[in-house]
């Protein structure tokens, strides 16, 4: 059987896991039976880690210890403007770490965003393992196309902490296009993907030809998503309340969480209804007037007015990307809408007007990304696949040169993997080191772009100035992750490079986080009954083993292979449950195995005959 690989859409609000199963991509339901898992992590009052719907459900009463929208913090510097803006809307506490990296305060712990994301990934991994009854270690994880190097690296780190071998990081809109194009390899078509998720917006133009998916241009905004639409409603509710009662509900963490839930609910309902009631009793209180309630009616028109500029921002990005791809709106063969926020009628209208056509109904906006990630995983690992993805780097990569200018080394929208060289010459006699500042972005002034890191070229050969040329090689992998290496041109000696400014986790930090996550996974499953069940299961394994030679004979004498295969499958599920200490699941397996054993014994006794049930 082909190696298992899962695709994970690690969203700002919700996450989805999928796999290519029996030749077709399928969403894997979580252990509660739902296809979407909220991207929420909480530390319950009893100290237990909660993830998904459980965490979300208790968010109102435990707002300070509930982490939402962690994706907005991934790979960002604590001091960056974008991070500070996000923080003002989050109910939990974030402090600065040693390297200007954000750390989330959760009880006693100060966790990196990657560690919190790893908890969500672990949950999805356990869901997939429960679904397949086998360990799952390989995964493709999606990120917004517009994510920069630091954000991608942080996502990859999160995967490693969750014990996953992240075989590829791919872009969400590209993943959606794979889901759209799966099984349509004969098609040649130019399509666009309009992806407005919970936290980010991406627009991508892509060309499909005989199973090759060539991304032509991509662009976006990592701080524009459904949550910004919610924020507009929150402000619309909170402002008049503040005027009337002098209380800003947004500074009360519990009230803010209730406002957030109510706003999101109202927004979703307004996709179907023309107006909704928002009712939040006992939202606050004053000594003078006692309990205060909030009651309001929001109409669809009102919501459209509140969020009109956000939609305009999306359309601006679309225009830029189409110019980069040298394409005009009417030429596109199909428009895919991805991300829950694209359900808003006003957005569908805006897209329809801009492209002069109905958007495609071919993909499910919530699930397409995870399905595409699963397809990419199967494309990479399984030989029978006839599809290939040619993706591009969303940002130009370059270095800071004299005067603080940005010198471009790799242009945006270059197909990855790619590499480029840049030769540095020493400017002083006997110069032994040089600093290279690597940035990503489009502005001519380096400081206005995103700083990826500072690298020190050390141990240079002592020589008169200008006599040492160092060839610095910049590589962008198919994951979109940058690496830098350097060679002395005259001597061919590889130069050492040290990263001196990066907000990412160190190798040791990742390893220790991965270890504690694994310990948690094991500890979590220990059940008082587990040892008894394990002993019982092992006894059953031995009995099956003893009976097996007689069973194979019976199979040839008319019993058939099917009951044996079924027993084998049940046995491997039970073995996995023992290994992973899944006590409850194991109890079910024991019942099943006992019944099978009884029936098979009977069949063997009779020489051959009825198969076991």
């Amino acid at each position, binding site marked *: 059987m082909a190696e298992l690989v899962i695709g994970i859409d690690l969203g700002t609000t919700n996450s989805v896991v999928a796999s290519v199963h029996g030749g077709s991509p399928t969403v894997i339901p979580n252990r509660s039976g739902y296809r979407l898992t909220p991207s929420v992590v909480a530390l319950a009052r009893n100290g237990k880690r909660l993830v998904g719907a459980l965490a979300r459900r208790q968010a109102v009463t435990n707002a300070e210890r509930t982490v939402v929208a962690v994706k907005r913090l991934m790979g960002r510097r604590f001091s960056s403007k974008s991070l500070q803006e996000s923080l003002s809307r989050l109910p939990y506490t974030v402090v600065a770490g040693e390297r200007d990296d954000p750390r989330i305060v959760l009880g006693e712990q100060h966790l990196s965003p990657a560690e919190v994301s790893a908890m969500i990934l672990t949950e999805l991994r356990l869901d997939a393992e429960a679904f397949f009854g086998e360990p799952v270690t390989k995964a493709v994880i999606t990120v917004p196309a517009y994510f920069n190097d630091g954000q991608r690296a942080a996502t990859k780190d999160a995967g490693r902490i969750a014990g996953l071998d992240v075989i590829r990081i791919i872009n969400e809109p590209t993943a959606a296009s794979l889901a759209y194009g799966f099984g349509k390899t004969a098609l040649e078509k130019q399509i666009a993907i309009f992806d407005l998720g919970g936290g980010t917006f991406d627009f991508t133009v892509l*060309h499909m030809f005989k199973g090759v998916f060539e991304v032509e241009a991509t662009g976006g905004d990592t701080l524009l998503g459904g949550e910004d639409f919610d924020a507009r409603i929150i402000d619309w509710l909170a402002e008049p309340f503040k005027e009337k009662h002098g209380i800003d509900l947004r500074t009360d963490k519990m009230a803010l969480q209730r406002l957030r839930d109510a706003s999101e609910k109202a927004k979703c309902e307004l996709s179907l209804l023309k107006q909704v009631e928002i009712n939040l009793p006992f939202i606050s209180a004053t000594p003078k007037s006692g309990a205060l309630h909030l009651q309001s009616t929001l109409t669809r028109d009102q919501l459209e007015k509140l969020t009109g500029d956000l939609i305009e921002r999306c359309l601006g990005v679309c225009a830029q990307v189409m110019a980069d791809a040298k394409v005009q709106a009417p*030429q596109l063969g199909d428009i895919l809408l991805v991300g829950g926020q694209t359900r808003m009628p006003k957005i569908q209208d805006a897209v329809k007007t801009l492209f002069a056509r109905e958007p495609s109904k071919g993909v499910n906006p919530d699930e397409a990304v995870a399905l595409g990630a699963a397809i990419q995983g199967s494309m990479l*690992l399984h030989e029978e696949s006839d599809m290939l993805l040619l993706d591009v780097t969303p940002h130009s990569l370059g270095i800071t040169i*004299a005067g603080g200018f940005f010198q471009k080394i790799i242009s945006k929208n270059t197909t990855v993997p790619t590499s480029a060289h840049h030769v540095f010459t020493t400017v002083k006699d006997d110069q032994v080191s040089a600093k290279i500042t690597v940035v990503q972005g489009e502005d001519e002034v380096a400081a206005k772009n995103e700083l990826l890191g500072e690298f020190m070229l050390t141990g240079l050969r002592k020589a008169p100035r200008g006599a040492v040329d160092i060839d610095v090689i910049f590589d962008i992998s198919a994951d979109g992750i940058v690496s830098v290496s350097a060679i002395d041109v005259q001597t061919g000696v590889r130069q050492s490079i040290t990263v001196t400014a990066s907000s990412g986790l160190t190798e040791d930090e990742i390893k220790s986080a991965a270890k504690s996550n694994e310990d948690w996974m094991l500890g979590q499953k220990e059940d008082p009954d587990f040892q008894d069940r394990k002993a019982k299961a092992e006894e059953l394994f031995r009995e099956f083993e003893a009976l097996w030679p007689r069973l194979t004979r019976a199979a040839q004498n008319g019993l058939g292979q099917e009951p044996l295969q079924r027993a084998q499958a049940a046995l491997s599920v039970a073995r996995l449950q023992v290994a992973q200490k899944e006590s409850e699941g194991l109890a079910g397996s024991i019942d099943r195995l006992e019944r099978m054993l009884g029936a098979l014994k009977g069949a063997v006794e009779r020489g051959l005959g009825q198969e076991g049930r």
Partner: protein
Amino acid sequence: MSAAARSAGGGIDLPADIQRELRDLESRGDALSYYRLLGLTADVDSPSIRRAYLEQSKRFHPDAWYRRDLGEFGPLLTKWFQRMAAAYEVLSDEETRSAYDREHLSELSETDRLAVEQRALSRAEQDRREVERRARLLRTKGFARVGAARSLYEQSLTFALNGERMHAIGALKAARELDPNRKEISARLVELEREQAKARAASALLSGREREVQQNWAGAQSAYVNAFQLDARNASAALGAARSASAAGDAQTAATWAARAVEIQPDDIGSRLLLAKLLAAQALKTRARAELKIILDKVPDHKEARALLKGL
């Protein structure tokens, strides 16, 4: 096992034909034109270039052989895929492709040279027909003019899609004449013309660099000047022109160009230092001193500038 035995195919999980092609590319790939690299002749149209590149990608993109044991072929696959992608990047745009054809005409094989000339001829013929058709449409009278403008506009979109920017611009100009009030026509025209100037400037800059490396100073200078005329905010073009003029011994012209580079990028120390040196070479001491002082204001411990200032 020795490297030679392994390269004979033992244990390497890559089809023999791709192994053979990679070895072939390693030995003579550097001499191949962009067309040959993509397995094309020089007379192909734009859609065929794209298809050829995508077909080659299916075989040479490292993902097609993900996590296989490729031995020494692994790095080669990446290297040659990247070369093909770079070739496609140049050939997929009409402007950069014609520039490539002009620059490399002497390196192309006899058949390819003929093909390029053939293509130029047939394009001239196509151009002529286009111009005729537009002239005919321009004679349209009354309300039909709006319809004719629309059909020209739509045609320009198709041209632009196929990378035929010049035709697209021609069609748009005619469309604008027929229907001057349609905003999208003029907007698209401005956009395309800007794109064209930029692409031309980039390709001129590239050929300037190439000639500079070959120490063809006059050629480099004219290419850089050309790039600057197309994109007057391009400091690299001005600086390149200054460098090549200076190398050719024309300090006066070089100084003019260096001054332009400094004007565009006042904070760039390198351009200013070059300007100071060129002024000093012409015995324009006061101006040279002024430039050096500005450098020292910005970088007080700039040794070279200090030494030069002392010498003056």
